[in-house]
């Protein structure tokens, strides 16, 4: 079974540009999560999809961030326009069901650097 995959693995862009990150969850996993780790600090929750619906987007930092999950399969996270403070590692995770007994499986992350 393939794990959670993320693309690209690295991205270097200039301030003001747009970047789109993609996450492919494990097949059959309805729950998809985005997290971000900035400057080696704690990993912070961004949002949670159940299928194509946003269940919780309380962690989205501002309206420059747009997450979508059309069709309930892969998800994209767009940052437009990117700012310096958006640099960090963006993780995606997925789980089959909701509930604490369900493990969240994480992808390797996308390392974003905004210059």
């Amino acid at each position, binding site marked *: 079974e393939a794990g*959670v995959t993320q693309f690209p693995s690295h991205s270097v862009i200039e301030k003001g540009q747009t970047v789109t990150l993609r996450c492919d969850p494990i097949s059959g996993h309805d729950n998809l999560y985005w997290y971000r780790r900035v400057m080696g600090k704690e*990993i912070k929750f961004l949002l949670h999809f159940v299928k194509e619906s946003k269940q919780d987007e309380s962690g989205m930092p501002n309206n420059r961030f747009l997450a979508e999950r059309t069709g309930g399969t892969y998800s994209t996270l767009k940052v437009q326009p990117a700012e310096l403070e958006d640099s960090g590692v963006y993780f995606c995770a997925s789980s089959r069901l909701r509930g604490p007994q369900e493990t969240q499986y*994480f992808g390797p992350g996308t390392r974003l650097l905004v210059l």
Partner: protein
Amino acid sequence: AQSVTQLDSQVPVFEEAPVELRCNYSSSVSVYLFWYVQYPNQGLQLLLKYLSGSTLVKGINGFEAEFNKSQTSFHLRKPSVHISDTAEYFCAVSEYDNFNKFYFGSGTKLNVKP
């Protein structure tokens, strides 16, 4: 809001020595507790979790953790580490009524030396 503190950003240890990685949390509600490990160039992998029951939880790769409610701690231990345990370790909590939202600590890099 939750907060998770991992007091040690880096822990160097010699192979076959014991290790303890510390994790403390602050919360006004009941929580679930997790430890994840990230090996280089890989995603985070669940080591163990505490949901209820026995406060001593055993996980993969010989790791265990003990939930101490009075001290709001969930320290990770291994009696004898291997070179392959070199990785970054993250402690996380989630609330009973919002269990899908994880709050992570800032991570502890474990460096096992020969």
